[in-house]
C-alpha cells in the first residue's frame, strides 16, 4: 500500500510497464523491436555506470571496454569454440567481473581526474587489444553468427519478441538491484563517498573497499549488457568496445539522471530514439547532440528523473508544511487571517509563520 503512494516508485513502474508493453505495439516490426532491445542492452551497461558514477561519484570511462569484453566473450566462445550461449554468457560475465576487479585494484589508487583519465586508458587498451589481436578477435572483420540463447525446447529465442523479453527480464533484475543498492546501507555508503570522500573516511566508511565493489559491479553490468548485445545483434565488430560507446552511455545516463533508479532506462530509451531520428546523418548527428550534451551538463545536470524527483520532494515538503500550519490553527483559533496561503508562501516563510502560531 505504501509503495503505491510513492510517486518515484510509481513512475519507475510506469516506465517499465510502458516498455514491457512495447511488443504489443511493434509486434510486426522486427526492426523497431531490435532497436528497442539493443537500447535495453545499453541500458543494462548504463546501470553499471550509474553505480560508479551516479552513486559513488567517480567518472569511469572504461564502461565501453567492459561492454566490449562481454560482447566479445560471448561472441568468440559461441562461434570459434562452439560453446552454448548460456555457458559462454556466464563465463564472460565472470571474466568481466575479474578483469574489472583487477583494473579496480590499480584504478582506485587514484581519484577524480586521475581516475577518469586512467579508466579512459583502460578502455582504450581493451579496444586496442580487440581491434588489433587478429589471431583471436578477427580484428576488423568482427565476429559473425553469434548463437541465439538456447530455449531448452520451450522458448525459441530466434524470434525478436522472445529475445526482447529475455533482455527485458535481465533489465528488470538490474533495476531491482539498483533499487536495492540505493535503499541499503551499501547505497548510503556510496552516496557518502560521493558527497565527500574525506568525510566518509572520517566516519569510518571503508572507502577503498566500497569503491572497489562499486567498480567491479559496474564492470559486471557492462559485461552483462555486452553479452546480451552480442546475441541480439548477431554480429560484433571492434566498435562494440570503442570509447565512443562509453560516451554514448554517458549521454544516456546524463539525460535520464545520474544516481536515480529509473534514469538510466529512460535516458537510454529517449536517446536511442533520438539516434534513430538522426539516423540519416549518422556521422553528423553530434553537430546537434554535442551541444545538447554541453547544454544538459550546464543547465540540467540532474537529468529528467533528477528534476522530477526534485519536484516531488518540493511538493511533499509543501504538503507537510501546509499540514503543520493547519493543525495549530484548529487548536488555537486566534484568527491569524493574515497568514499567507500555501501557494504564495515561500518555504522559509512557512517555517516562521507556523512557529509564530505555536
Amino acid at each position, binding site marked *: 500500500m505504501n509503495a503505491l503512494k510513492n510517486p518515484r516508485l510509481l513512475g519507475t513502474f510506469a516506465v517499465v510497464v510502458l516498455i514491457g508493453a512495447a511488443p504489443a505495439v511493434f509486434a510486426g516490426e522486427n526492426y523497431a523491436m531490435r532497436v528497442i532491445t539493443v537500447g535495453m542492452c545499453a541500458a543494462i551497461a548504463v546501470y553499471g555506470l550509474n553505480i560508479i558514477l551516479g552513486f559513488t*561519484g567517480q567518472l569511469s570511462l572504461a564502461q565501453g571496454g567492459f561492454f566490449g569484453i562481454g560482447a566479445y566473450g560471448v561472441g568468440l566462445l559461441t562461434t570459434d569454440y562452439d560453446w552454448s550461449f548460456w555457458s559462454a554468457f556466464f563465463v564472460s560475465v565472470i571474466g568481466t567481473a575479474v578483469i574489472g576487479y583487477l583494473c579496480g585494484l590499480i584504478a582506485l589508487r587514484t581519484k577524480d*581526474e*586521475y581516475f577518469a*583519465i586512467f579508466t579512459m586508458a583502460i578502455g582504450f587498451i581493451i579496444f586496442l587489444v580487440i581491434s588489433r589481436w587478429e589471431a583471436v578477435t578477427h580484428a576488423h572483420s568482427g565476429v559473425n553468427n553469434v548463437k541465439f540463447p538456447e530455449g531448452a525446447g520451450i522458448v525459441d529465442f530466434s524470434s525478436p519478441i522472445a529475445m526482447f523479453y529475455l533482455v527485458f527480464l535481465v533489465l528488470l533484475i538490474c533495476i531491482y538491484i539498483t533499487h536495492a543498492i540505493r535503499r541499503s546501507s551499501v547505497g548510503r555508503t556510496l552516496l557518502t563517498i560521493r558527497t565527500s570522500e574525506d568525510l566518509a573516511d572520517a566516519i569510518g566508511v571503508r572507502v577503498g573497499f566500497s569503491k572497489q565493489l562499486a567498480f567491479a559491479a559496474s564492470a559486471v553490468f557492462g559485461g552483462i549488457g555486452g553479452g546480451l548485445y552480442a546475441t541480439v545483434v548477431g554480429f560484433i565488430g571492434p566498435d562494440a568496445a570503442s570509447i565512443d560507446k562509453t560516451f554514448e552511455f554517458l549521454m544516456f545516463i546524463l539525460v535520464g539522471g545520474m544516481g536515480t533508479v529509473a534514469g538510466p532506462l529512460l535516458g537510454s530509451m529517449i536517446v536511442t530514439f533520438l539516434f534513430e531520428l538522426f539516423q540519416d546523418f549518422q556521422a553528423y548527428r553530434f*553537430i546537434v547532440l554535442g551541444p545538447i550534451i*554541453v547544454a544538459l551538463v550546464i543547465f540540467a*545536470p540532474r537529468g529528467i528523473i533528477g528534476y522530477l524527483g526534485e519536484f516531488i520532494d518540493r511538493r511533499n515538503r509543501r504538503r507537510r508544511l501546509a499540514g503543520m500550519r493547519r493543525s495549530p490553527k484548529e487548536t488555537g483559533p486566534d484568527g491569524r487571517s493574515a497568514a499567507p496561503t500555501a501557494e504564495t508562501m515561500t518555504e522559509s516563510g512557512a517555517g516562521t509563520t507556523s512557529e509564530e502560531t505555536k
Partner: protein
Amino acid sequence: MTLFIQQLFNGLALGGVYCLAAIGLTLVFGVLRIPNLAHGALYMLGAYITYFFLTTLGVPYIAAIGIAALLLFVVGVGLERLVFHPLRNSPHTHHMIAAVGAMFFFQALAQAIWGADFRRMKTPITGGLDILGAEISAQRIVIIVTAVIVLALLAWFIKRSIHGQTIEAIEQDRIGASLVGISPSMVSMLTLGLSALLATVAAGLVAPINLLSPTMGDALNLKVFAIIILGGLGSLPGAIVGGFALALAETMTATYISSAVGEAVAFIVLVAVLAIKPTGLFTKAVQR
C-alpha cells in the same frame, strides 16, 4: 647505427609535437583544474584549418599555421566562455562530460566540412639532410627547430611577461591571485586560448607527415594525457620531459620490437606511473 640515428630524429620530431600539445593541456589543468578531454579535438581542428589555408587558399605554409593558430586561439577562448566558465562551480565530473560533448561536436563539424576520408597535406618543405649517414627529412628538422623556438617563446612569455605571470600566479594560488587584482576569468580564457594555439602549431607541423582525419585527435589525446600524468599534472618541465621521453620510447620500441608495442607504450607508461607514483615525476606541480 644509421637506423638508430634516423629513429632518434624521428623520435625528437615526434617529441616536439607531443611537447607542444602536452604543455597546453598541462597549463589548462594548472589554471582551471580540469583535464580538457576536448584537447585532441582542438588539435584536429587546428590541423584541418591549416590544411584549408595551405591547400585550398594557397597561403604559404608558415603563414597558414600562424593564421590557424590565431583562429584556434579564438576557438579556445570561446570554449572557455561557453563550456567551462558556466561549469566552474560544478563537480569535476561535469567538466569532463561537457568536454566530451565539445569533442564530439568538433569531430562531427570537421567531418561535415571535410568528410571522413583521410587527407594528405603537401608541404612546401622538401628534401633532406644527411646526418652521420642517416637521411633526415627537412620537415622533421623544421619540426624540431620550431618546437624549440615556440617552447622558448612560451617560457619567456610565462616567466617574463605580465600576462604570462598572471597564469603562473593563478596556478599557484587562485584566491591569492584574485586578491591582488588578477582576474581568474581572464586568465582562464587566455590559458585555454593559448593551449589551443599550441595544439594547432603542433598539428600544423606534424600534419605533412601524418594523414588528416576527423578522429586524428583521439590517439593523441590519450598520449598527451599519459605525458602530463607522467610529468605530473600542471607541471611545465614535466610536460617537456614527458613528451620527449614518451616519443623516444615509442619510436624505439616500434623500430626494435613491434609497431603494436610502440602504440601501446603510452598506456604501459600510464599504468606504471599511476600504479607506482600517481603524482608523476615532477610532484610539486599541483597541490590538491
